[in-house]
């Protein structure tokens, strides 16, 4: 009773990727949605979920066709983000959820939505939920019908929580949706898209400078497109840089339909790996990147932080702009200690777990979603600093940083900003994150 489940990196690595304990697999147990998990476990509740992400196309509005419980909080939460006037709801009753009769009302609802907007929308996104997943709704067809009825694009947006661990999870599907209006266009060799996030990466990120030095004049991100025309120009890109694995499916679709090839770059905090990644990217793209200056700046920030805080023991969470295992590995390799990691172990990050096992075997790994986390107490932990909003929830008495703001850290600039922020927070300063 009341034992919080955790496992050391050494134990988990020994079990192997194919034998991850059930306690660490969210599909094998009840899910505890503690305040630490709300943004990533149920992004409808906080953060960038399907609904907000679906509004990434400039000038778009969203009609949520679902039972009331699926839309609760959206306008209200959207108020904080300035999106509250962009959400509309067609509420389903019990007959609708059994018969699917709501589908025939969608074109008329879309028309009313358009009429209610102060500015005509560029596109109406129809967000549907678990009910339509189970009904097997052909929402593409419904959207075509609605589009013909109102004369503007209407796109589906699938908030199918039931398929979260499936082949096409909701956050991957929504990325495909938001690029699906792009049409084949002659390519411009000096144009590149950055895919993966719904908010821009750091203005200071070296990727912008390095691409421009390599002759790229136009770098587009959907979150920086000021209007619909600008968004449509994303189809002229010579290639896509995929900065988040959840954008793979969208990138593949763009490769198939628009003949835009993609290159994947991962967000990492180990600067030697960042260096290797840029080298490989340069070789693949036929570009020579000079990244030494950025490498040195990042290294300097790490050293500066380490000089003052080398004795710190971190708890690292997953409500963070990082893979918690990769970030923990980076911290340990830089000489810091990591006592606790709150994360979802799986195929993607097991290699990091094995490396952590080699150099910090007693680091403990917790599943945020385990029912036993109800009884988590920081008293049993050695951590005296945190990274991540979930880790902050468990270690509220410690200093640290959330590191989950909307502007996205990437590359050396991300490392530099992380350690500069950490240095400030651990020295008792206030972080403007």
């Amino acid at each position, binding site marked *: 009773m*009341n034992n919080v489940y955790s496992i050391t990196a050494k134990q988990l690595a020994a079990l192997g990727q194919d034998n991850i304990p059930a306690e660490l697999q969210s599909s094998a147990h009840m899910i505890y949605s503690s305040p630490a998990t709300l943004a990533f476990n*149920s992004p409808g509740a906080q953060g960038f979920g399907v609904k907000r992400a679906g509004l990434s196309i400039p000038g778009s509005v969203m009609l949520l066709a679902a039972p009331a419980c*699926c839309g609760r909080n959206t306008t209200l*939460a959207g108020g904080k983000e300035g999106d509250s006037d962009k959400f*509309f709801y067609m*509420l389903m009753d019990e007959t609708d959820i059994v018969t699917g009769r709501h589908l025939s009302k969608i074109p008329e609802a879309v028309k009313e*939505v358009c009429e209610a907007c102060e500015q005509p929308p560029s596109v109406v996104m129809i967000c549907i939920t678990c009910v339509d997943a189970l009904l097997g709704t052909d929402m593409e067809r419904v959207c075509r019908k609605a589009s013909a009825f109102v004369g503007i694009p209407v796109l589906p947006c699938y908030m199918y929580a039931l398929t979260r661990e499936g082949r096409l999870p909701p956050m991957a599907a929504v990325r495909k949706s938001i690029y699906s209006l792009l049409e084949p266009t002659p390519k411009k060799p000096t144009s590149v898209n950055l895919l993966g996030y719904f908010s821009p990466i750091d203005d200071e990120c070296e990727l912008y400078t390095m691409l421009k030095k390599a002759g790229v004049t136009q770098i587009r991100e959907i979150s920086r497109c000021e209007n619909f025309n600008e968004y449509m120009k994303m189809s002229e890109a010579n290639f896509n840089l995929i900065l988040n694995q959840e954008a793979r499916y969208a990138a593949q679709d763009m490769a198939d339909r628009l003949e835009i090839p993609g290159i994947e770059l991962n967000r990492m905090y180990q600067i030697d790996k960042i260096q290797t990644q840029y080298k490989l990217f340069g070789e693949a793209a036929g570009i020579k990147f000079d990244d030494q200056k950025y490498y040195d700046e990042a290294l300097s920030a790490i050293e500066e932080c380490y000089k003052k805080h080398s004795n710190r023991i971190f708890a690292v969470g997953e409500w963070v702009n990082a893979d918690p295992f990769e970030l923990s590995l980076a911290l340990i390799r830089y000489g810091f200690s990591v006592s606790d990691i709150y994360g979802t172990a799986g195929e993607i990050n097991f290699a990091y777990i094995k490396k952590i096992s080699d150099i910090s075997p007693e680091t403990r790994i917790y599943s945020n979603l385990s029912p036993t986390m109800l009884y988590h107490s920081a008293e049993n932990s050695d951590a005296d600093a945190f990274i991540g909003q979930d880790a902050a929830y468990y270690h509220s008495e410690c200093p640290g940083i959330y590191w989950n703001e909307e502007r996205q850290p990437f590359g050396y600039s991300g490392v530099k900003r992380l350690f500069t922020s950490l240095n400030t927070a651990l020295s008792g300063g206030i972080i403007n994150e």
Partner: protein
Amino acid sequence: MNNLLKRLSPFAPDLSGAVSVLYELGGLTVICDAGGCTGNICGFDEPRWFHKKSAIFSAGLRDIDAILGRDDKLIEKLQDAASKTNVDFTTLVGTPVPAVIATDFKALKRMAEKRTGLPSITIETTGTRYYDEGAEQAYLELFKTFSVEQLPVKKGSAGVIGATPLDFSNLEAEKNITVYLENRGWKNTTCYGMGSGLEFIKKASAVEKNIVVSPSGLKAAEYLKEKFGTPYITNIIPIPESLQKELYELKGKKILIIHQQVAANSVRDLILKKTEADITVASWFMLKESLMQEHDFRLTEEDQLKGILESGDYDVVIGDEIFRRVMKKYNGRFIDFPHFAVSGRLEK
């Protein structure tokens, strides 16, 4: 068009109401969803979530579970969670997913009791109705399951049914209600589901009188009256002081109060004690016939509210400030009366 919201968010759904009643009772509550419904409840509809822990879990259903109707897997997970937590009973709460696949909740209840050895209740919410209906079901199931023994009645004791943060928009509601009732002679007050655990539900037959503070408590109060002969009264709730100050100078006005029915009725009574006015109560939620007055009405559509307000029939509207979003052309006076189930806003 009906059922289309253009300025408001949907209000708190039935499953949020059920969870709100169960929150402090020491049970294990499983929301039979994929995760989103639970996230909305925990992240939004349950303001206690950030201050007070409760064993509320998502069943974490996946498409294949729903398609194959894998009740055995659900119960296995329930048993596992129950074995790792200190709980007195389990509850299974419905969502749109079991509604679509027609889950047999009676069978789930039997299976849960057999596997865990704990009493179990089921609340067949669908996510398409509002919080009050879910809360009503939860109160009724709790009293039917746990209030089985006829105990000697304690003089001066009162049981309060229907108090949740969704109704009262205040995390201190239980204290406010207790103080309010003590000032009126009730010395031993239990607010079911807020500030009291399951043991008080079990001893419900011992109270002298039940006090219904929202429509969701009425059915349970009627049940307790029938089963144990406990009488009940209603329309007695503390009105926030900030609101009371606003209720002066309403003499001769035509007033529309929009809230849950008991709260709205109590405000009406308070105004009429002070002065004469023409007052109508409207609610998006249940309007119990026994508590209605002539001209009170149910709100069902956003456009309906907009039309009523823009018609200029009312000098004063008392309701949650969020309604201002649909009354941009209303020229009368507006008095804010927060309703958490509507706006997710607590009283200041």
